[in-house]
């Protein structure tokens, strides 16, 4: 899709007003921050229009003028309000430099179909901006938590020191608290004890059942599937309530085994879904071939089928693991203080004594989920490659 359309430089009457418009929007924010909205808009528009004109028509060299603008605005920002403003100014400068030349050289049309009208081109880019905004919405909360966890104060917001990038504003004290506090350490230990056991149970039972479900003739397949997937669908509070009542009756409430069983039940749908998805592309003639050459069912399973569906099994296991590791509602009801897991500790922390240690834990957990996500993605690709469903 590269260089679909021949491009040419655009006239001054096009790109200068567009840059001015963008400058005006930027000026709006700066202006309101200084309590002078209108002046901000006008000044921003005029300034940016002039800069764009000078860069393209007077200096004419792309690289130097873009870097020059970046440096200029960074310095201007620093003079105005210190390091944070310098960073913002620099970013603005880089953006406007790029934007001016992007418009001037006509690069914006490079990758889109030549027959589009200007209105359609405008929509094309507005649409991307909207999508970008949604993606920013998705990722911001996760990104915001990370720097806040290094806060030197017990606040949940950025302190002036942090915004000034003053090293005194940052510290590892919340991480130290996490590693030294017996409550948190006990919670981690419990989570690490419960999740693998639950995962093992759901993967063991789940894989067998998924293989059974993928056979060509299974009576009541739809009903069985609906029952096995239901732990994912039934609201957690209902599962938790039911298990609380029932497990108290049979004496499993407040025990390690009770929590493990409950979590295993919750993880099963994920194993079933991922493993059956892997088995969809499984070529059954392979097992027949193995049987033909004298392998017993057990050998066939471990030597032929298992290696092929292993990626699906592992990612199902990871799903089950994260389900248990992340689960709080059921453990809140089925467990007792002795089974306090990490999410439970976070939940009480959020509800009662708010402490920024939660943010340190959150950052560590984001790290864990990044690792898990990477593993699952790699496995998925490997599995698709193995089954020849998509090119490498």
């Amino acid at each position: 899709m590269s260089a679909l359309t021949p491009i040419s430089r655009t006239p001054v009457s096009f790109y200068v007003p567009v840059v001015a418009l963008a400058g005006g929007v930027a000026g709006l924010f700066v202006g309101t921050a200084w309590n002078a909205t209108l002046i901000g808009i006008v000044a921003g528009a005029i300034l940016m229009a002039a800069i764009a004109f000078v860069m393209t028509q007077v200096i004419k060299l792309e690289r130097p003028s873009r870097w020059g603008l970046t440096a200029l605005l960074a310095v201007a920002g620093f003079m105005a309000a210190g390091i944070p403003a310098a960073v913002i100014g620099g970013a603005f400068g880089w953006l406007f430099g790029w934007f001016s030349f992007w418009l001037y050289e006509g690069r914006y049309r490079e990758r889109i179909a030549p027959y589009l009208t200007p209105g359609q081109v405008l929509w094309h880019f507005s649409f991307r901006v909207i999508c970008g905004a949604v993606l920013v919405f998705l990722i911001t909360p996760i990104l915001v938590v990370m720097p806040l966890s290094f806060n030197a104060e017990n606040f949940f917001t950025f302190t002036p020191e942090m915004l000034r990038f003053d090293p005194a504003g940052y510290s590892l004290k919340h991480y130290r608290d996490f590693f030294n506090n017996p409550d948190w350490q006990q919670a981690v230990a419990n989570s690490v004890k419960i999740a693998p056991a639950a995962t093992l149970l759901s993967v063991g039972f789940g894989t067998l059942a998924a293989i059974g479900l993928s056979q060509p003739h299974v009576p009541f397949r739809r009903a069985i599937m609906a029952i096995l997937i239901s732990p994912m669908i039934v609201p957690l509070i209902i599962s938790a309530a039911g298990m609380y009542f029932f497990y108290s009756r049979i004496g499993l409430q407040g025990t390690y085994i009770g929590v493990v069983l409950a979590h295993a039940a919750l993880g099963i749908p994920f194993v079933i879904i991922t493993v059956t998805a892997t088995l969809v592309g499984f070529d059954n003639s392979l097992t027949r071939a193995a049987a033909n050459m004298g392998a017993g069912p057990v050998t066939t399973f471990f030597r032929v089928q298992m290696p092929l569906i292993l990626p699906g099994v592992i990612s199902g296991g990871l799903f089950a693991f994260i389900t248990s590791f992340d689960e709080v509602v059921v453990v809140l009801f089925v467990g007792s203080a002795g089974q306090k897991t990490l999410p439970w500790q976070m939940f009480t922390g959020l509800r009662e004594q708010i402490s920024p240690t939660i943010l340190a834990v959150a950052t560590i957990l984001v790290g864990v989920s990044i690792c898990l996500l990477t593993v699952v993605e790699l496995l998925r690709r490997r599995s698709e490659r193995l089954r020849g469903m998509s090119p490498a």
Partner: protein
Amino acid sequence: MTDNVANGPMLAADGTSLKSSLNRALRRQKLRALMLIAPLLIFVLLTFVAPIVDMLFRSVENQIVSDTLPRTVASLKDWDEEGDTLPPPETYKALYEDIFVAKERKLHTRLGSRLNYELTGMSSLFRKTGRRVEDMGEVYQDQFEDLNPFWKDAENWNPVMGAPAWVTAQNAWTKASGRPQPAFVPNPAIADILPQTAAKFALFADFVQNEDNDNLSKTDPWAVVYSALYDDLSTGADISGYTGPGAQELQEAAAVVASFETVDFSAAMTKVDKDWSSLDVWQTLKVYSPDFTSGYFLNSIDMQKSVDGPEMRPENQQFYIRLFVRTLIMSLVITGSCILLGYPVGFILANLPSKTANLLMILVLLPFWTSLLVRTSAWKVMLQQQGVVNDTLVWLGLVADDSRLALINNSTGTVIAMTHILLPFMILPLYSVMKTIPVSYVRAAKSLGATNWTAFWRVYFPQSVPGIGAGSILVFILSIGYYITPEIVGGTSGSFISNQIAYHISSSLNWGLAAALGAILLVVVMGLYWAYDRIVGIDNVKLGG
């Protein structure tokens, strides 16, 4: 395959007909599949389905009334609750006996709080009655004891009420021996002559031996036993034929029992608390006396049981219907905003070159894989009064410092945070459906003269509807039962029905109501689940692209 008639039916290698041999193979295949599934199915049925079924039973269970007040319930059977007369004195007497026993077992407060859900004041009524019930029967006890100190002691009662062999065994038993007490065996002669006394004493003996674990030979009988003895004697029990232990004392008592001061239980009860003369209390008792009740379900839709059948609660006590409606509306809003935000992203992911799309996909999958509590705490941090969002808005000058937006502890907070949390569940199905829509259709529409909008609305959009359907049902199902996020960022005005269920389980301990609310929620979710299975197929749930 047609059978060859001339050569007989087609045969398999082992000589049986091919048809039956194939059938057998198929049967074996089915059996093998079921054998593989069976362990998991049993596991899920035991650990997951059974608890939920148990919870559903709990929503109609009501044995507590008839278990705690068996005699009262039996005696109320003949009472007409729709009339305006109070129950007869026998019912009050039965109530006295029931509460006396319940008090000893410490069950009367439990019943009180159970009935308090239906009629406020019941809890204190039962507690108060429990405190005073002891004194009520002592009138008879005192008179028997005044008549003859014989009646004071357990040592004298046991030989009268128990079989001789048991009395010997019981007297030989000591607590230190560590062995269980010899179980009480009634004296058959007395059981015939003094049936009520024997019944009450058996109850008392069972309680002392099995619940209190006290030595029966050293525990004096309850006051109820004395009033039962009075009843037996005053109704003309024939003790002339009795010759066993205590025969002389019994005859002495029988001779004077007619002159005993009697207790009017209905007056006594009313004296303890005038609520016992209120028709409401008795109607509530009667209405809730059956073993199973629809009361919890009626409560959960703001109705109540009354003698004239179900009726709406007064306007100011209505709460649950509004909560259900709020949960539904907020789930719809969340689903709507997920469609609004998810559709463009799904579209762009499906139409970008796969390298860029995979990169952007990470931005969708990372929140999906991140712990729910991490995301919820992030939103709590961001939406606070002094949080990042408000700080940014103030810094930009969009909001004045003294009028920061209230974004948390209300429904706004719940909607924002839950839209973020559930958005991946919308984007992923949308993406997988949009990925299969051929680009050429839209191009063809445009080349036939459709405008952009027409091409999208008439050609592309209808093909993406399955994705919207799948995503919406999934998001709606998940949001309608959400607990954690509304609990943390929702406050009171942004809480869901789940929060109320949790409250009834862990704080108010009204488990029946929690179970009924849960059952209603479960029915809604199961309906949607069925629809999802119909429309999308359970097999087609996608996790992570």
